[in-house]
């Protein structure tokens, strides 16, 4: 249990899928213009990854090796369609804002990665916990990026004014750059950089030593 719990907490920061494994960045760029879309996407992805990991782990002894990827993708794609349908029925406005990105959860490496690397080899409970950790780790990054972008781009959070903007008689000049995709790149990049600076075990060994190469040559 302790081991399972550590597997869960590890995913949140140290092994975070976005900042450590650099997975799911595409959607992290696209849906973080405001906090509400980031929250909705987080909920959708966490639901899909938990359900798919649990189902795939449950079936893992019966999935033939030869067609395991097809089976995994079929299960994940079906779950994504159901979640997309649910959102269009119960959260219509947000599903319009998220447009194709809910459907693109199918191609999110994070979901298939956890299915293939973990759920295929482990019992249901640890797989579910691992998926939940990854889902929440992904959500954490999306929520941080979404909050920064909405706050600095519009001066609001979830549509509530936090920083009164100049156009409405306040003092805050919104940074329209924050609403563009490169802003998310910069924020995620800075997060990766700060995590790696603080935790030296994350630092990668240089593949080539330029000094050494030169002396040999």
């Amino acid at each position, binding site marked *: 249990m302790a*081991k*399972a719990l550590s*597997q869960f907490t590890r995913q949140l920061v140290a092994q975070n899928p976005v900042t450590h494994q650099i997975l799911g960045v595409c959607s992290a760029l696209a849906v973080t213009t405001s906090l509400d879309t980031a929250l909705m996407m987080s909920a959708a992805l966490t639901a899909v990854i938990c359900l798919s990991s649990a189902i795939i782990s449950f*079936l893992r002894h*019966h*999935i*033939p*090796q*030869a*067609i395991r990827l*097809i*089976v995994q993708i*079929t*299960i994940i*794609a*079906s779950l994504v*369609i*159901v979640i997309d*349908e*649910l959102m*269009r*029925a*119960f959260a*219509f406005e947000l599903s319009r804002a998220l*447009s*194709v990105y809910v459907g693109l959860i199918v191609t999110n490496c994070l979901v298939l990665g956890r299915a293939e*690397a*973990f759920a*295929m*080899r*482990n*019992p249901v409970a*640890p797989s579910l916990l691992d998926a939940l950790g990854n889902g929440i780790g992904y959500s954490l990054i999306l929520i941080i990026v979404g909050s920064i972008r909405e706050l600095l781009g519009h001066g609001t959070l979830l549509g509530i004014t936090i920083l009164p903007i100049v156009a409405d008689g306040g003092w805050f000049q919104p940074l329209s750059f924050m609403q563009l995709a490169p802003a998310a790149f910069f924020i995620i990049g800075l997060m990766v950089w700060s995590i790696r600076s603080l935790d030296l075990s994350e630092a990668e060994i240089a593949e080539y030593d330029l000094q050494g190469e030169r002396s040999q040559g």
Partner: protein
Amino acid sequence: MDEHQTAAPRPPGGESPAKIMTVSFLVALACSLVVSAAAIWLEPRQQAHLEAERAARMAAMLDTLPGMADVLAESGADSLNTYLVDLSTGQFIDDVPPDTYDMTAAANDPETAVAIPANLDIAGLRQRAPLAPVHILESDGDVALVILPVSGTGYQSRIEALLALEADLTTIAALTITAQAETAGLGARIEDADWQALWPGRQVADASGQIVIEVVRGQASGPYEVDGISGATRTGNGITNMLHYWLGEDGFGPFLSRLRDEGL
């Protein structure tokens, strides 16, 4: 990496073809049942949202139309009337309530649907409803504005729109796309207000009455052309075909010529 790794993955080829077939069949069956059940169960709710959105777009379109506010202020809010038109004769039909008439359902129901002759079916619809609800804004008993529901086939989806014509029945007052599922970022830009703002003032027909309005590739020249969206040529062609069909003899053609000759 994973402490829980208990069993090494089995080598490929260890399973019999029968097992592979059975598992893939069962997975496909279960998944398709789940997806179909969700789609059927949730459809009424999704349709309700789409209907509400369509109504909101209709209202937004009416707000932006030129002179709309003046006419309504002069003659009261009830001067926008909805009539049901028999498409083949162009006459109004009085015995069916126009507000509840569902064109899509009537076009899909084999009982009521009218087949479109293949040589006329440029919009790719195959069949249409026999009747169509049109909204007419009246000013002192004359037509000030006619709003026609139109639909057609784009690159990958069915496009539905409202076309508003001014009193001369030739000048476009507005085109509002009410439903489409074209490629996001390309064809789907027909929903953008910027693109729809290109339509007011364009002419659907030339001096001889021939329908000539066209979404062109690149820049429009002249009153009969509208700028295309780059990367969405087939969506633009779909819009052109949709307008040519619905303004033509199998669409609202008989109705528009009756309106032009006889008035309301």
